[in-house]
């Protein structure tokens, strides 16, 4: 017997990130919680970055998907703490990123933040040809969460989801 909460959580879990549609909000780690309170479904999401412009779309998509699935009232709450980390992207999500030609983030740095005056070094493999010989083009990519890389062997550029 599937509970109402489980059913609502399953529906919420199908909603995709508007910027990286290969990921569900659950895979991205943005979907924090789904509860059912009486006839209201309460979904909690956390922004990836403070200025994430996709929050409004995520909220609308959650409301529509749940309403279409027969839940009459949906409330989307913002959870600010703890702050989102790229470590929350699931293994499934990482596989989806690679399948879509993106490079998945490594472990996020923890602890005190030192000044880094040399370029960030990452040992990445090209998501297209698998070569370990890659170079950074820019630490700032098409969205706040991505850096732009290039494969030295197949020359294809690719996005790397940054560690944060």
């Amino acid at each position, binding site marked *: 017997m599937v509970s109402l909460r489980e059913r609502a959580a399953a529906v919420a879990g199908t909603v995709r990130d508007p910027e990286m549609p290969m990921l569900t909000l659950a895979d991205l780690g943005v979907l924090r919680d789904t509860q059912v309170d009486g006839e209201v479904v309460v979904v909690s999401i956390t922004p990836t970055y403070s200025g994430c412009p996709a929050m409004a779309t995520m909220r609308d998509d959650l409301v529509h998907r749940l309403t279409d699935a027969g839940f009459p009232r949906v409330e989307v709450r913002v959870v600010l703490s703890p702050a989102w980390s790229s470590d929350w992207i699931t293994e499934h999500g990482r596989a989806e990123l690679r399948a879509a030609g993106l490079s998945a983030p490594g472990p996020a740095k923890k602890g005190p933040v030192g000044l880094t*005056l040399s370029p960030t070094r990452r040992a990445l493999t090209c998501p297209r040809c698998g070569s370990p010989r890659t170079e950074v083009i820019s630490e700032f990519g098409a969205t706040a969460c991505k850096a732009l890389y290039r494969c030295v062997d197949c020359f294809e550029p690719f996005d790397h989801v940054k560690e944060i």
Partner: protein
Amino acid sequence: MMNHDSVYDGLLGGDSSQWAFGTDFEDPLAGVDTTVPAGVDGGELAAYCLMLGDDTLVLSQRLAEWCSRAPELEEDIALANMALDLLGQARLLLARAAAADPAVVPVLPAGSPVPAEDALAFFREAGQFRNVRLAEVVNGDFAHVVVRLLLFSIARLAVLQRLSGSGDAVLAAVAAKGVKELTYHRDWAGRWFLTLAQGTDESRKRLVSALEQLWPLRDELVTAHPVELSLAAAGIGVDPAGVRDETDAVLDQVLAVAEVDRPQRAPLAGIGGRTGRDGMHTEALSRMLAEMQVVARAHPSGRW
């Protein structure tokens, strides 16, 4: 069947609620407990949130003015990315200010859908802004944006690291997230500082000139306003003077590698002792706000 004569018909598809942007505003603090902590004055907390939020709002606007003007595409995107981070922090801080003391929010015509944080951003006069003057001065060349961001991010990162332990849960959460963002803003500015210092004679000359020019505005970042002191004593805010040594150390680290001397120029005085934190600004702020606010002010009901 999509009507190709009007792109909006196709987009709306008879259900305007499918249109994600423009039909609805959302509360960035929806579901967040914004109760003012016991023993804390809501007006003081709001003033403090405006100080931090106006810093990031005004600097974000200055960074956004670089859009399409940076020396190369990657840096154009970098500046826009950082502007967006700061704008996001501003939105949360201004929303927190409005929740702490609704009296700070400008009153708009009845029925206006403009949310509180937008009313604060677009409907206050320059004298009501609490940002440091470093954030507002007019953009110069690329060295200028590098130096301004370096000075700001060093001090703001040190403040946010302490603020993430604030007794106000909203401020603590905004700060903890901001730490991650300011860390790479600071790295970006530090790396470009070195690149320009070690580049050509021209790039070094421009860098040193930007540092000399902005130096008098640096002191305000590490000087406490009475509101900051009061909230620091209550465990809610951070005394910026307490991070002066740390910011000096980080800056000296960059200056040493760059082989650039620390400027000797004195801090820019306030007017009758009043500075940006008191609403006393340079002429640049009102000019910047005139452009930033003009569309919102022409349509206070959010419709046209």
